[in-house]
């Protein structure tokens, strides 16, 4: 097994077209800088510049891809050294880019989906022209940071990009300025990400302490010589980082709240790219996780992935908010990816495969949701929708293709990737194979259930919005009682539909193409796919998955398709629904696990500081002051008393001298 991974260590210096790879970072960073510094002057053309920069980066990424495929497989790992970044005593970090199949795959996904979503945003934000420039500046900033994350050739560079995407995510979630829920959600995302980032930072410290470097080359070639404890510790700390960024249990609660941002942000950052950074991190660290000593760490990765994928599905069944259902769907699909990369060499390639196909169809689903909300006065409650397929045919068709891809409809993209993951999980063999494979199969059925519910409530059935108005928002300037607007759903402009159509093509054909070429293409970076043979044959797994998905979808049709859906959410519901509506108590867990102990710790520290530290300092000062006040009284101003004290002192000194001499 280790023989395969020696491949991942021999990197070549980049030359030719690849030596300009810094452009990938520079173009979007330049776009962000121009738009942020230029301010209001760039309002007119800011969105064009922002989109142009990302499209240019995508064009370059395509050139880079073909440049790499022209090389022999063993030459495809390339390093581009840019400059010495940090050089302090023993710590030296080079700023360099790692150009290998894994990073180039991600670059293509980020810039490709990124370009589509930039174009989509032009149409989506046409109601908010004043602020659109700022939005594009942040989006460009995000693209630059995300590219740095996947392109960096050391863990420190990765961490730089990691924090950069965190910042961009924070800015974009809170983009609707002056709205409390957006500000709260942004803060929540930022804080919960910090918890994970601490894990990543500690992992980097540990690497530096034990191996003296954070460059991928050095770390991955020396990790095998470290003690089992160190390897497992680094593996678990990296997993904590991945949990924070990718919304995995127990840090999943921020991701659904992050839907407070504009929908293109949800599609790009909180579905297709940023939240998959955790999967990238674990796949990138595959030389570590593939070690036999890291077995325990991998098992924890799988457990986290399995818990999250079930949790996301269950909560997704109960929510009534269009975007939040999709958000929990994202949480659960990333659970699949984490489970896949936790399987080790048998699953890395399939985790990445699912990541790519998910990037297509989930971005498409989110853009469809955005298109609906754009047409429905920003209404997100699916109970107020229904029958929209007549009004928005293009969005309906593209969304449905994404939906079919997600539930694993045969020969659409989700079918290929999810199927492989389930097969690899079952291939673990024994109890472990049955547990993880079983959870993955159950997840496939649940996914079909909640997505079909979404399909029925939004697109099919009777239009429930016809006699309703959108919830009225009080206008402080008009004295009359607030009046909501009636809904007039309409098809979106072509800047929005064209990206959706392209993503729908990806959802349909992406899986078939990628599953054929991806494992071989990724081999130089993450090793060969290990064949697994579980209790069930591959064909059996495929049939079982489809059957289970069909059962889930059929159940949803029986429950929601045949009767009228109430516009008001029923409050008298069974315990599982109540639990799912409360995020399966994810927030309570975080509250009990992180927030409360944190508060207690702070209070205890404040108490110790006030009473202990301050008490000691103040006590010494008060004691000195009091005794000085008493001693002061001896300064009477009478010469004779001074003379007496001098005499007494002299007698004492003389007596002491005599004692020493004669005693």
């Amino acid at each position, binding site marked *: 097994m280790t023989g395969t991974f020696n491949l991942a260590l021999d990197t070549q210096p980049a030359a030719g077209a690849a030596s300009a790879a810094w452009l990938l970072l520079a173009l979007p960073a330049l776009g962000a800088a121009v738009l942020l510094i230029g301010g209001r002057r760039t309002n007119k053309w800011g969105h064009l510049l922002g989109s142009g920069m990302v499209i240019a980066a995508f064009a370059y990424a395509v050139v880079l891809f073909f440049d790499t495929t022209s090389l022999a497989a063993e030459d495809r790992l390339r390093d581009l050294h840019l400059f010495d970044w940090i050089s302090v005593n023993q710590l030296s970090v080079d700023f360099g880019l790692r150009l290998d199949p894994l990073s180039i795959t991600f670059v293509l996904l980020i810039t490709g989906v990124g370009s589509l979503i930039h174009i989509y945003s032009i149409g989506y934000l046409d109601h908010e022209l004043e602020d659109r420039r700022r939005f594009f500046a942040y989006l460009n900033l995000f693209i630059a940071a995300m590219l740095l994350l996947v392109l960096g050739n050391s863990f420190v560079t990765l961490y730089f990009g990691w924090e950069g995407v965190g910042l961009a995510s924070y800015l974009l979630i809170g983009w609707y300025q002056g709205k409390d829920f957006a500000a709260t959600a942004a803060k929540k995302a930022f804080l919960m990400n910090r918890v994970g980032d601490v894990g990543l930072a500690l992992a980097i410290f540990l690497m530096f302490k034990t191996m003296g470097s954070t460059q991928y080359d050095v770390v991955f070639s020396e990790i095998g010589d470290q003690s089992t404890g160190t390897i497992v510790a680094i593996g678990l700390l990296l997993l904590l980082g991945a949990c924070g960024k990718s919304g995995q249990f127990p840090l999943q609660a921020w991701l659904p709240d992050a839907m407070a941002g504009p929908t293109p942000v949800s599609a790009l950052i909180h579905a297709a790219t940023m939240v998959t950074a955790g999967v990238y991190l674990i796949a990138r660290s595959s030389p570590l996780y593939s070690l036999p000593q890291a077995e325990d760490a991998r098992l924890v990765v799988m457990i986290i992935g399995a818990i999250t994928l079930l949790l996301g599905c269950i909560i997704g069944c109960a929510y009534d908010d269009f975007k939040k259902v999709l958000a929990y769907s994202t949480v659960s699909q990333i659970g699949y990816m984490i489970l896949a990369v936790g399987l080790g060499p048998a699953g890395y390639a399939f985790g990445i495969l699912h990541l790519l196909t998910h990037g297509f169809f989930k971005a498409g689903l989110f853009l469809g949701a955005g298109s609906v909300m754009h047409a429905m006065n920003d209404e997100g409650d699916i109970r107020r929708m229904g029958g929209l397929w007549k009004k928005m045919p293009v969005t309906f068709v593209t969304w449905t293709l994404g939906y079919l891809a997600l539930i694993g409809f045969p020969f659409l993209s989700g079918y290929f990737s999810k199927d492989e993951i389930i097969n690899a999980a079952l291939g673990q063999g024994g109890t472990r194979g049955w547990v993880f494979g079983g959870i993955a199969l159950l997840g496939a059925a649940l996914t079909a259930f909640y997505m079909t519910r979404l399909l029925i409530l939004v697109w099919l059935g009777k239009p429930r919005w016809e006699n309703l108005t959108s919830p009225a928002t009080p206008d402080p300037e008009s004295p009359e009682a607030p009046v909501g607007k009636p809904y007039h759903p309409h098809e979106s402009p072509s800047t929005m539909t064209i990206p959706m159509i392209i993503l729908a093509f990806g959802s349909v054909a992406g899986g078939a193409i990628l599953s054929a070429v991806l494992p071989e293409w990724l081999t130089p970076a993450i090793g060969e796919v290990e064949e697994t043979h579980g209790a069930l044959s591959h064909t059996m797994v495929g049939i079982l998955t489809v059957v289970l998905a069909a059962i889930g979808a059929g159940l949803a049709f029986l429950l929601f398709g045949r009767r009228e859906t109430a516009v008001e959410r029923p409050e008298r519901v069974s315990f599982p629904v109540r639990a799912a509506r409360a995020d399966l108590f994810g927030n309570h867990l975080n509250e009990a696990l992180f927030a409360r102990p944190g508060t207690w710790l702070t209070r205890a520290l404040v108490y110790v500081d006030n009473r202990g530290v301050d008490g000691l300092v103040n006590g010494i000062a008060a004691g000195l002051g009091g005794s000085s006040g008493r001693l*002061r009284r001896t300064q009477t101003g*009478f*010469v*004779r008393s001074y003379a007496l004290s001098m005499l007494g002192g002299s007698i004492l000194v003389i007596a002491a001298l005599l004692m020493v001499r004669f005693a």
Partner: protein
Amino acid sequence: MTPTYYLLLSALLFTIGAVGVLVRRNAIVVFMCIELMLNAVNLSLVTFARLNGDLHGQVMGFFVMVVAAAEVVVGLAIILSIFRTRRTASVDDSNLLKY
């Protein structure tokens, strides 16, 4: 000659001077008592010079006299100026420099 008598006289004079400094209020008397102490010490210095048969003690005595003379000049001037401003020569009355 017996040095004991000289030393006893010196101790007696020093004690009288010391007690005078401690108990008397008049600045001039206190001043004179200080002189008495200085001269008592001079007496013992000269006695020790005689005992040891060299001039070190006598030289010290001269030093003390010179310093005492200078001190008298400064001290009397201070006492005089205090008396001019406060119309008193009692050391207990000039007690402003206190807590």
